C-alpha cells in the first residue's frame, strides 16, 4: 500500500485557501474558451477566419479554414482547445460546486456564492458552445464512470433554456460587485450578460426558425429553435435591458464617455478592469501567452492584417463612408484617407507609415518600431493596447457593457421599435464621436446596427458568429467566402516602413465558404463513439 502523498478531492476542499486553487482553475478553464491563451504556434484568433483579418500564416489553423478546406470534422475550429475541453472546464466547475461544502472555514453564504459562480461559468461555456455547435449534450454534474456517459445532444431550445435558468439562479446569489482583491469573479451583471447573449442568439435568424440552414430531418431541433417566434426578440431586448440596468445601477459599470472618443474607446477596450468591463479573461501569461497573437511586437501577430472588406465597416470621423480606390493611387492618398477615419479605427489599428494612434508619442509603438516586413494589408491591429506602453499583457474583454446597448438596439429594431433601437445605438455610436444615426427603416437600420457591431467589437470574438447567426447573404461573397480584398502597396510588393509609392484595393485571396459552416462540426472522433449526431454537411 503506497503512502499516498498525492492531493485528493477531500484535501483540495478542506480549506478556503486550497479550494481557491480549484476555483481559479475553473475560471481559467472556462473563460479561455476560443482564445489562443496557450500561445501555440499554429493557433488562430477568430477574426482570422471571419474575413476581418488575413488568415494568419500558412502554418496556422486559420489558413486552411479560410482558404481551402473550410471547417472539417477532422480539423481545428476557433474552439482551439477542442470540443472536448469545454466539458473538462464544465467538470471542473461542477467539482467545485459539488465539493465546496466540504470546506471547513468558509461561511455558508460564501459557499452559496461560489456555487453560483460555478453555475454561471457552466452557463457561459454552454452559451459559447450553443452559438458554435447548436444543441450540445447537457451535463448536470461531475460524471463518474458509473454514470451513463452517452449523453445525446439536447435541442437548441433546451440548451438556451438551461443557460437562462442557470443564469437566473446564479444572478440571484451573486454579488453586484467584488472587492478589489477579487475583481474578475462572476457578478450579477455577468450572469445576466451570459443569459442576454444566449437569448440574443436564440432570437437571431440562424436559430429562430423552423427550417434550419441545412436539413437535419427529425433532428432539426438540434440546429435551430424549431419554430420562428418574433417574441424571442422581446425576450432578448428585456434580457439586454436587465444587464444595462443591473450593471449601471448596482455594478458600478458604465459606458465610458468623457467626450474624448479615442481615449474613451481606447480605455473601454484596453485598460484592465475599466468601468465598462462586465467580465474579462484575466489571464496574464506573460510574454509567451495569448497576447502574442494580439501584440504586434510578437512574430505570432505579424500574420494578422486588416482586410478592406472589414475596413469598410468603419466610418470616417465625420460619420460618412470612406472609399478605397481600386486603381493604383499615390500612397499619399492612403495617408489622407486613413487619417480621416473614426476614432474607434484609430484606437484599433496602426496604418502604414503612421505612428500608432493609440500609443501617441510612445517610441515602443512608433512606425519604425512596429514595422516587420512588407505586407499587403490595409493596416495592422493594435487593439487592446491603448496607452499600454511596454505592458505586453491585456485582459480580453469577454463582456463589455456596450454589447448590451447594441443587443438591445438590434432587438428593438427587429421588434419594429426604431426609436428605442436608435436610442440604444446612438449611445455607442456617439461615444465614438460620430453624429447620431437617424435611420428608421428597419432593413436599413439593421444594416447600420450590424455595421456598428463590426466597428465597435473588432477582435472581441463577435463578428465570426454574428454574421453566421444573422445569416448574412453575403457571407460567401466577400465576408468569409468569395473574394477577400485588401489594400495592396507598391505594385503588390507590400507596404514598406517608409518610402511607399502607391496603393490600391484588390483581391487578396479567395475565401472558402460552405453553408455547412453556419455551425461547427463535432470532431469525427466524437461522432465515431456513436452518441452524437453530426451537424449537417460534415
Amino acid at each position, binding site marked *: *500500500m*503506497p*503512502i*499516498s502523498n*498525492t*492531493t*485528493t*478531492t477531500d*484535501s*483540495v476542499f478542506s480549506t478556503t485557501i*486550497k479550494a*481557491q*486553487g*480549484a*476555483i*481559479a*482553475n475553473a*475560471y*481559467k*478553464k472556462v473563460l479561455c474558451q476560443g482564445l489562443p491563451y496557450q500561445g501555440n504556434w499554429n493557433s488562430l484568433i477568430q477574426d482570422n477566419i471571419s474575413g476581418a483579418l488575413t488568415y494568419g500564416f500558412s502554418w496556422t489553423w486559420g489558413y486552411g479554414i479560410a482558404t481551402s478546406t473550410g471547417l472539417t470534422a477532422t480539423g481545428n475550429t476557433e474552439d482551439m482547445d477542442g*470540443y*472536448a*475541453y*469545454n*466539458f*473538462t472546464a*464544465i*467538470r*471542473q466547475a461542477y*467539482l467545485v460546486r459539488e465539493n465546496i461544502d466540504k470546506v471547513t472555514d468558509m461561511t455558508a453564504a460564501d459557499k452559496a456564492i461560489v456555487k453560483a459562480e460555478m453555475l454561471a461559468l457552466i452557463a457561459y461555456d454552454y452559451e459559447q458552445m450553443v452559438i458554435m455547435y447548436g444543441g450540445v*449534450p447537457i*451535463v448536470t454534474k*461531475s*460524471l463518474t*464512470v458509473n454514470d451513463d*456517459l*452517452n*449523453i445525446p445532444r439536447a435541442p437548441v431550445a433546451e440548451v438556451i433554456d438551461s443557460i437562462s435558468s442557470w443564469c437566473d439562479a446564479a444572478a440571484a446569489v451573486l454579488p453586484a460587485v467584488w472587492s*478589489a*482583491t*477579487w*475583481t*474578475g*469573479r462572476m457578478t450579477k451583471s455577468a450572469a445576466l450578460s451570459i443569459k442576454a447573449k444566449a437569448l440574443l442568439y436564440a432570437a437571431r435568424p440562424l436559430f429562430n426558425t423552423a427550417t434550419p440552414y441545412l436539413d437535419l430531418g427529425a433532428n432539426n431541433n438540434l440546429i435551430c429553435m424549431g419554430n420562428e417566434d418574433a417574441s424571442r426578440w422581446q425576450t432578448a431586448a428585456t434580457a439586454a435591458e436587465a444587464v444595462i440596468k443591473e450593471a449601471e445601477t448596482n455594478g458600478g459599470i458604465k459606458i465610458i464617455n468623457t467626450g474624448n472618443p479615442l481615449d474613451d474607446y481606447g480605455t473601454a477596450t484596453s*485598460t*484592465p*478592469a475599466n468601468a465598462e468591463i462586465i467580465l474579462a479573461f*484575466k*489571464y*496574464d501569461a506573460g510574454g509567451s501567452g495569448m497576447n502574442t497573437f494580439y501584440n504586434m511586437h510578437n512574430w505570432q501577430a505579424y500574420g494578422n492584417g486588416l482586410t478592406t472588406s472589414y475596413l469598410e465597416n468603419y466610418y470616417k470621423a465625420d460619420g460618412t463612408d470612406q472609399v478605397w480606390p481600386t486603381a493604383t493611387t499615390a500612397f499619399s492618398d492612403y495617408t489622407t484617407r486613413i487619417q480621416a477615419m473614426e476614432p474607434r479605427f484609430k484606437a484599433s489599428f496602426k496604418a502604414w507609415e503612421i505612428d500608432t494612434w493609440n500609443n501617441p508619442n510612445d517610441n515602443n509603438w512608433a512606425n519604425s518600431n512596429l514595422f516587420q516586413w512588407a505586407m499587403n494589408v490595409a493596416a495592422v491591429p493594435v487593439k487592446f493596447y491603448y496607452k*499600454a506602453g511596454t*505592458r505586453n499583457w*491585456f485582459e480580453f474583454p469577454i463582456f463589455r457593457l456596450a454589447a448590451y446597448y447594441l443587443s438591445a438596439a438590434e432587438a428593438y429594431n427587429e421588434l419594429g421599435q426604431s426609436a428605442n433601437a436608435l436610442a440604444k445605438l446612438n449611445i455607442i455610436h456617439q461615444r465614438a464621436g460620430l453624429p447620431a444615426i437617424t435611420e428608421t427603416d428597419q432593413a436599413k437600420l439593421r444594416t447600420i446596427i450590424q455595421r456598428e457591431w463590426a466597428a465597435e467589437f473588432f477582435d472581441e470574438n463577435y463578428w465570426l458568429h454574428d454574421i453566421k447567426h444573422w445569416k448574412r447573404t453575403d457571407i460567401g461573397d466577400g465576408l468569409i467566402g468569395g473574394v477577400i480584398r485588401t489594400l495592396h502597396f507598391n505594385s503588390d510588393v507590400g507596404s514598406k516602413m517608409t518610402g511607399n509609392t502607391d496603393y490600391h484595393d484588390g483581391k487578396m485571396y479567395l475565401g472558402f465558404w460552405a453553408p455547412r459552416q453556419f455551425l461547427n462540426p463535432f*470532431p469525427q*472522433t*466524437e461522432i*465515431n*463513439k*456513436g*452518441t452524437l449526431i453530426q451537424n449537417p454537411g460534415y
Partner: protein
Amino acid sequence: MIKRLLLQWSVALLLLELIGLPTTYGQSSLTVSGTVRSGNEVLIGVSVYQKNNINIATKTDENGHFKLTVPDNATLIFSFIGYHRQEVNVNARPVLNINLVTEDKALGEVVVVGYGKQKAPTVTGAISTVGGKELVSTPVSNITNMLVGRASGISAVQSSGEPGQNAATIHIRGIATLNGQDPLIVIDGIQQPAEQPYVVLNAMDANEIEGISILKDASATAVYGIRGANGVIIVTTKRGKLNKPTFGFTANGGFTNATSLLPILNSYQYALFRNEGVRNAEAAGNSSFDNLLFTDNELWKFKNNRDYTTDEINSLEIGTSDRQALANSPALYYTSHNYFKEIFGGKGQQQQYNMNISGGVEKVRYFASLGYYHQQGILNDYNYGGSNTNSNFKRYNFRSNFDIDVFKNFQISVNLAGQSTVGHVPSGGYSSTDQGDRYQLIIQKIFESSPFVGPNFVNGKLVNGFIGTSGDGINPLVDKGGSGVSPISDFLSAGTLNQYITTLTSTVNLKHQMDYITQGLNLNGKIAYDDSYTKGFYQTTSIPLYKAMRDPNNPNNIVLAGGQLNPDYTSDNWGNGAWRKVYLEASIDYAHSFGNHNVSALFLGNAQKYTAHDLTYNTPSGLMGLVGRVTYNFSERYLLEFNMGLNGTENFAPKRRFGYFPAVSAGWVVTKEPFYPKNDVLTWLKLRGSYGEVGSDRLGSRRYLYLPNGWSSSSSGYYFGNSNGSSANPYFSGASETTLGNPDVTWERAKKLNLAADLRLWKDKITLSATLFRENRNNILVNLQTIPATYGVSSSIVPPANIGRVSNQGYEIELGYNDNIGKLSYFLRANFSYARNKIEYMAEPSYQYPWMNETGYSIGQYKGYVWDGFFNTTEELNNRPYNTNGNQARLGNIRYKDINGDGIIDTKDQVPIGYSNLPRIAYNLTIGFSYKGFDISALFIGTAQGSFPQSGYVLSTPFAKNVGAVFQPYYDGHWTQEKYENGEKITYPSFSFSGSGPNNLFSDFWLKSNNFKRLKNLEIGYSIQDRGLLTRAHIRSIRFYANGNNLITWSKEVMKGIDPELADDGKNSMGYMYPLTRTFNFGTNIQF
C-alpha cells in the same frame, strides 16, 4: 522435485533396512574388495553392507575402493544417493567391481516444471526444454538469442546488433495482450522482477546453465498466477554431484561482422541519378534545382576519382611533372564513399573463457564457475586521436552452487552468483538513454550526406571541411553537396557512453525430509536476495580535425589547416540505477506410490518485493502468492494434474488484490494399455490436454490505478484583482484533477486450452509431438476510446478499465529422428510454430469503414495505402483520384488504390497491409551427425507471415535535403520512361525534386515481408578418442570445435542491410539501426 523425492525414499528404505531386520551367522568368511564406479568415474562414500546384517558395513574410500569381510554366500548391497541400489551375491568371489547406474537414467528424463520436476512421460502440460549444451554451441552473448530456433513456440526479434544491446525479445506463443508481453523468467526458482525481466538472464554465462524449460500452457504456468499468462522461461543452473572433482575449461574466440550492410550508391551513379531528378523538375517547370546539376566533366571526375580532367590539367600553368602527378592524383573533392560501410563494415573480436569445478563428497556437493566474455563491435576501429568509438562489451561471471547435507534428512543449498558487465558504445554526441535516438544521431548524418561529401582521411589526417565558400572557385562542390564534413569526423568526435552493471544474486534453500511423519513428505524453505547496480558516464575526446583544399597555385599541394584540440569532456550519471529484490518461499511437498497409484502434492507460499529508485510513489512493488499442485497417475498410463495459483499484488484495491488461477490437465498413454499390441511402428502414444486460467499484472507503467482521483496543485491558475495595468494582477495558483482512479482495476485473465499428442514411431527412432492451442485473454486494461467528451476528463487521465480482449491460437509441431549407420549416428529435429492473435475488443469507437479499426486485426497489424503500380502514362496521371496528401504526382510515381471508391485518396483508404512485425510462423531444423570423435550440427531457422516497414525518411526518400544518400536498389530499379517503354522491370518510383509526389506515403510498397531462412548456427567439433593418451595427460575429455552464427541468410523482400530478424522498434524502420551480426568462433573444451 519428483526426482528428489525418489532420492529421499531410497535413503529412507536404507534406514529401515539398517535398523529393522535380523542378522544371520554360520557361514565361512571371505574378504571381498573392489571398486565402485559409475561409468568411468569412481564413486566415493558408497555404502556397502551385508544384506540382513547392518553390523557388516563400510564405505568406499576416495578411490572408490572398499574392503569387507562377509560370509562367502552373503549378499552385498551397494547404496548411494542418486544411484540405483544394487544387490550382489558374493558367491565366494574375492574381488567385486561394481557399476552403479544413476537414478536419472533409471527413471527416464526429468523435466523441470514450475516449483518442481516431473518425469517426462508423466508430463501433461506444454513444456519445451533446451539443454545447456545446445546453448553453448551458439556463440552469442545473450541467453535469449541462444534460445532462438531451439524450441517450438518461441518467436523472437532483435532490436540491435550492438554489443551489450543485442538481446532478443522473446515471445512465447506469440502475443496475446495489449499490455506487457514479456514472459516470466525464473532462474533457479527465483522469479525475475517484471520491471527487469531480462537483466540477469542476459548477463548469465551459458556454461552455468544445466537447462531451460519453456512453459506454455495454463497447466504449466497456473502456479505462477498473475505472472504466468505470457508464458514462463525457467532456467536451471548446474549443480555438483557426488563425484571426484571435475575441472572444466572452455576457451573460444572469433570475430563478428554485420550480416549485411545498407548498399549506398557510389558518387558516379549518384550524380547520374540526381541529374535525372533535376531534369524531371525542370520538365515540370521548376528550375530552382538547376544549381545541383553535375556537368559531364564532373561525371567523368566521379567515375575516375580525379579532381581535374585532362583538358583542365593542360590548361593549368604548372610544370609537366606536376601535370603528370595531378593526372594521377586521386580526387580530394570528387571522391566516393560508402560511409555506412566505413563505419559499420568492420570486424569485431570476441572471446570467451569459462572455468568450472564440480563434484561432491558425501555431505557436500558443489559447482563453481568463473566466466569472462568480451565482444567488440563491428565498427571500423579508426582509433583516431584516441577517439575509441567502437562498441565494446565485457562481462564477468561468477557462480557457486553448494548442496550440503547437514543431517540425513536436512539439506541446505546455497547459490551465489555475480555478474558484472562493462559496456562501451559510441554516443553520437548526445547522452540519450534512448537507443533509437542514439542510433539516429550516429546514422542520420550518413544518410543526409552525399557519397562525396568529404574526403575523410587525407595523409592520415581527418578532414571535416573544405576551405572555400560558394562562388570562390576553390571548393568546386560546395553548392552540390560537398561540404567536406564527413560523417566519420562527426562520429569520431561525438564521444562514447560507458555503463557498468553489477548484479549479485543469492539464494539459500532449506529442505527437510519428514519421513518420520509419513514417507515422501518434505518441508522446504527458500530465501533469495538479488541486487543490481548500474553506473554510467558520457565522455568525449577531442580529436584533431582539419580543413582541406588544393593549393590554387599548384593543385598537387593539398593544404590542411586546423587540428586544434579542445578539452575532453566527461559527464557523470548517465543511466544510473539500482534495484534489489527479496524473495521468500516455504512449501510442503509429498509424493508416494500406492501400488500403481502414484500421487504427489505441493503446497507453497511465497512473497517477493522489488525496490528501485524510479518506482512511482517511491514504494516497493510486492507480490504474494500461494501455489498448489496435485498429481495423480495410474501406472503412468492415466495422468491427472491440478495446478493453481492464488496471487496478490498491492497494485490493486484491497478487496481485489488476490486472484485465483486454476488449471487442470490430463493425459492418457494409449500404448501402455494392456490391450495395446506391442509393435515397432507406434511405440508410444500419449494424448494430453489442459485447460486453465492464468493472469498478468503487467498493466503499463501506471501503478496503483485504484487510488482515488488525484489532484495537482500546480495546474493552471488564474488572476483575480485589479492593478489597472500598472503591474501584473495577483496570481492564484490552480488545482485540478490529474489522475482518475478506477477502484475496479484488476489483472488480465487468460483462458488457455492446450491439446497435444506425443508419438514415438519405428522403434522410437521418430518422435513426433503435435499441439493445438487457443488462448482467450480478457480483462486487458485499455484506455477507453469510447468514452464521450461529455465525461469531461481529458483522455490522458481517463482511468483505464479491464475490458480489452485478445484471442490467440495456433499450433506447434515437433519432429525428431535419431538413427545410426554403423558408427555414424545422426539426428534431426524440426519445430514448426504458428500463432495468430486477434484484437477482439479494445474499447475503440467504430470508424466509418471496418478497416480503419484496430479491433478485429492482429496486434501491431500494419496499415497503409495500397500500392497500385506506377503512373506509367500521362493519361493515368490525369485520371488519378485526388490525393489529400498534397495531390502531387508525376510520371513514374507510386499510384495508390482508392479503396472506398470515393474518388479521394485519404486516411479512409489506409487498410491493413502485410502482417505485424513479429512473424506468425517460426520454424527450425537441426541436423547433426557424429562419427567417432567428430560431430557436426547445423541449425536452420525461418519465419513467415511477418512484416518490416522499410519506410522511414531516407529509406523512402532519396537525396534527403537535396544531398542525402541513395540506396542502390532505388537507383537500379527506378522508373524511367525508357524502361517503361522497353518493358523492363521497374521496382522503384521515379525521382524528381519538385512534384515528386507522395511516393513515401506509408503503403504496402514500403512494407516488406521479413520472411527468411537462415543457417543460424553451425558447429563442427572433434573429441579426442584415444583414452590412453587422455589418461596419460590426466585429461578426462577434450574437444575442439568451430561454430558460427547467422552464417547464411536467404530473404527476399527486405533490402540488403536490413536483417530480417530486426525488430521494428526504436528507429530501425528509418534505417537508424545497428546492424545485426554474424559470428565465426573457434574453441576448445577440456575436462580434467
